[in-house]
């Protein structure tokens, strides 16, 4: 009887260790990610429904961003590489906040610098504004020299295989932190 209890305790311990703790912020209860319909960089309509069954890494930015976006995308690319074969269960979706400059072709070229499997999304100002509102993302256009820049939210949402927003990773976390959290969601 005692041995059985010990085995049970050991099994619980292993399960706890395997589950691990998220490095990102987690939502309780998780809500269904608001759906959108944008122009994808793969030439098709971009919506989240087509990625059900995959863990989605959802971030917002723009291709002319020189500070935050390249670091974020480089981190995603590193994390995907570190995941190895398990990366096939992950899809990075990058939605632009700058529809004026980010055509699907330009966004595709930008994302390909990091990983060709990353999918970008663009649309009209109105469409993108609604998506940002649904996700609590801010993007403020500011004049800069002869052009403009965006001051935008830099966090990343992690969606589970059923399309629920499970976690929010603030900017600055390492690829290892992403790998940790993606592995948790992939194991579910």
């Amino acid at each position, binding site marked *: 009887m005692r041995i059985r209890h010990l085995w049970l305790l050991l099994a619980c311990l292993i399960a706890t260790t395997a589950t691990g*703790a*998220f*490095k*990102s*912020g*987690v*939502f*309780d*209860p998780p*809500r269904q990610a608001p759906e959108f319909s944008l122009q994808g960089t793969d030439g098709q309509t971009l919506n989240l429904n087509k990625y059900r069954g995959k863990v989605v890494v959802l971030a917002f930015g723009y291709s002319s961003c020189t500070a935050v976006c390249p670091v974020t995308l480089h981190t995603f690319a590193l994390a995907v590489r570190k995941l190895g074969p398990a990366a096939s269960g992950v899809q990075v979706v990058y939605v632009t906040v700058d529809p004026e400059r980010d055509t699907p072709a330009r966004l595709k070229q930008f994302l390909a610098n990091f990983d060709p499997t990353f999918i970008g999304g663009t649309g009209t100002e109105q469409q993108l504004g609604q998506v940002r509102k649904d*996700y*609590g993302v*801010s993007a403020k256009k500011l004049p800069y020299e002869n052009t403009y820049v965006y001051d935008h*939210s830099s*966090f990343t949402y992690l969606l589970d295989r059923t399309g629920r927003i499970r976690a*929010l990773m*603030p900017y*600055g976390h390492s690829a290892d932190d992403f790998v940790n959290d993606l592995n948790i969601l992939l194991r579910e």
Partner: protein
Amino acid sequence: MRARKWVLVVSAAVMIAVLGTVALLPLPSGSRERVFEIPPGTWARRMAGEKIETLPDHIYLTVGVRDILVLKNQDVVPQTFGPTLMMPGQSFTLPFERAAEYQFACTAHASGQMTIVVDPYPATPWARVSWRARELLRRL
């Protein structure tokens, strides 16, 4: 003259005892969460013109002591709380492992920014004295 000397000696002894206690007292071992809530009725009160701050401009955390930020939306409408949009009844738990100053956009503040200062774990006795002094000052 002798009485003055004794006062000095006793004061020094008391100071050393206090510093020693502050330095060697174990750190708080309870919950590592720092919880902030949007209470029910916040939206209604805002709509009525009241200015309500649900989060301070600066939140102070310490790695290994109180390093988990918990935000709870107990109101009846979605709210942008700290860095994220939260649904009614939803909570958001964000752990911090690295000491740093984190800036988050936050529409709840007039500045549009919320700063989370995460102090390093006070590992040495002197670090504990310094950490406890900072905590005291922040409470005042």
